[in-house]
């Protein structure tokens, strides 16, 4: 077998992305020239304020929202924390609910799950909805979990680990047919990767992040539907209509707006990205005892995730890294807790095989040669680790 020349292949775009040149170019003047504080009254401040509101309009336009429905935060995690805590608190107070009940799924990102756990510790009642083998949440199961004291439902739009896209619009309908309970979708992995329109989804809140869509780290946002009330998250100088104080990270916010526009404009390229993803999936699942995780078709266009029998994910990842390939694993050994990914075990996979997981997340810039190179190296590395394994 002739091995291809060593390349660098970044296939961890669900972790973070490269900042696009155009994005960096657009944000740079707001660091070095137009550095005014949007709260300042002088012309520098007013210029900054104008740029901030323009970024808000651009962001809103991509998401199908009104500008006043967009709030900027520091990251997706902050948006999730704020939405869950803020909306459930107001709803509980307004409806005089003493012990609030909140609902989410077993496969959420830790930003949601750990917030739920913290609220549980403070006296909330929580329900975690299970998923089917492909990671799909059924609208009926969410509706069935609603109780008289339910104050919030939070369901992710697309899984960061296995890429499954949830039927959010249907779940929202099922929830709202019972009562107008605040509904959050964590769309951090969906925005920029698939078309997202808040009105079509019918959600009350939607969280998103800059660095997952080719903007810098340190900026995120939360869509809050007009009329939905949230407790303030950070008190201070009254920025973001007093709801989320702290001087706005203007350059980052402008970068995120630009990145959202670029990803919207590149949406037609999605079909070719899906084709590359499917080639990657076909190549890797041709390895014996290897399985795709997540839904075969209702999945993010760049997500290809797998489990391999008889090997461990961290070893797999380091050997791929030595070959210039960046991926990710939900293996226990890669985490401080030494527990395998809660997402993989929620799909009903045996714990043993969850240790051998690999997530590859490609993007528009991944070439066909990159795909061939990944397939060749995953085959080689899996074979090598299986030779070393006493259980394969």
């Amino acid at each position: 077998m002739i091995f291809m020349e060593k390349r660098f292949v970044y296939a961890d775009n669900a972790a973070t992305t490269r900042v696009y040149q155009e994005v960096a170019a657009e944000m740079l003047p707001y660091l070095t020239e137009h550095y005014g504080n949007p709260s300042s009254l002088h012309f520098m401040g007013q210029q900054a304020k104008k740029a901030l509101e323009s970024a808000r309009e651009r962001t809103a336009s991509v998401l199908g929202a009104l500008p006043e429905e967009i709030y900027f935060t520091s990251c997706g995690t902050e948006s999730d924390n704020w939405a869950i805590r803020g909306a459930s608190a107001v709803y509980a107070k307004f409806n005089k609910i003493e012990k609030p009940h909140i609902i989410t799924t077993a496969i959420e990102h830790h930003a949601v799950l750990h917030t739920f756990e913290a609220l549980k510790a403070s006296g909330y009642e929580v329900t975690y909805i299970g998923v089917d083998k492909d990671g799909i949440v059924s609208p009926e199961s969410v509706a069935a979990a609603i109780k008289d004291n339910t104050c919030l439902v939070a369901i992710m739009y697309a899984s960061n680990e296995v890429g499954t896209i949830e039927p959010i619009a249907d779940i929202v309908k099922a929830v709202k047919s019972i009562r107008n309970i605040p509904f959050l979708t964590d769309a951090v992995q969906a925005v920029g990767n698939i078309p997202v329109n808040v009105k079509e989804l019918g959600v009350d809140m939607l969280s998103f992040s800059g660095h997952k869509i080719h903007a810098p780290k340190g900026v995120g946002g939360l869509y809050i539907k007009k009329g939905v009330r949230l407790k303030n998250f950070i008190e201070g100088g009254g920025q973001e209509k007093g709801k989320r104080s702290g001087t706005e990270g203007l350059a980052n916010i402008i970068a995120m707006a630009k990145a959202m526009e670029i990803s919207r404009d590149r949406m037609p390229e999605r079909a070719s990205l899906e084709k590359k993803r499917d080639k990657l999936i076909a190549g890797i699942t041709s390895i014996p005892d290897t399985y795709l995780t997540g839904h075969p078709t209702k999945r993010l266009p760049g997500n290809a995730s797998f489990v391999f029998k008889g090997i461990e994910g961290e070893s797999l990842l380091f050997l791929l890294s030595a070959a210039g390939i960046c991926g990710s694993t939900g293996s226990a050994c890669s985490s401080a807790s030494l527990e395998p990914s809660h997402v993989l075990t929620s799909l009903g996979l045996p714990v043993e095989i969850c240790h051998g997981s690999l997530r590859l997340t490609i993007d528009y810039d991944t070439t066909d040669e990159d795909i061939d190179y990944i397939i060749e190296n995953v085959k080689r590395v899996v074979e090598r680790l299986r030779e070393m394994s006493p259980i394969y």
Partner: protein
Amino acid sequence: MEYSEKVMDHFMNPRNCGVLSDANAVGEVGNAKCGDIMKIYMKIENDIIKDIKFQTFGCCAAIATSSMATELIKGKPISDALNLTNKAVVEALDGLPPVKIHCSVLAEEAIKAALANYFRSIGNNEEADKLDASCDGCCEHCDCGKH
């Protein structure tokens, strides 16, 4: 996860990896549910470990500790192997991240399990029982009843 150069070297180029067809001492510890299993094969002659091989299912640290542990006792008398501690393996690797220390424990226990198997095969049950009494490197997922 940040590993020392030595760990990465032993992970990328493991020493003594494979199966020993004429082994007279074989030990396996760990549990697939925990994510690491080590199997040690030894060929013991006149109380000397003439040859040693390992097979490991596990992370970089599990593979590196297996490799280093086998290096440390290859060609050495059984007494050296009995005295091998996980600490010595960690030191020889220039350290391990705290969450990975259990991998070195697993390596020590795999060697002791192989030695127990050897002692039993030569009728030295007393020595074998002593070795068996220690934990076999499993974790809370297992059902060995020692926790």
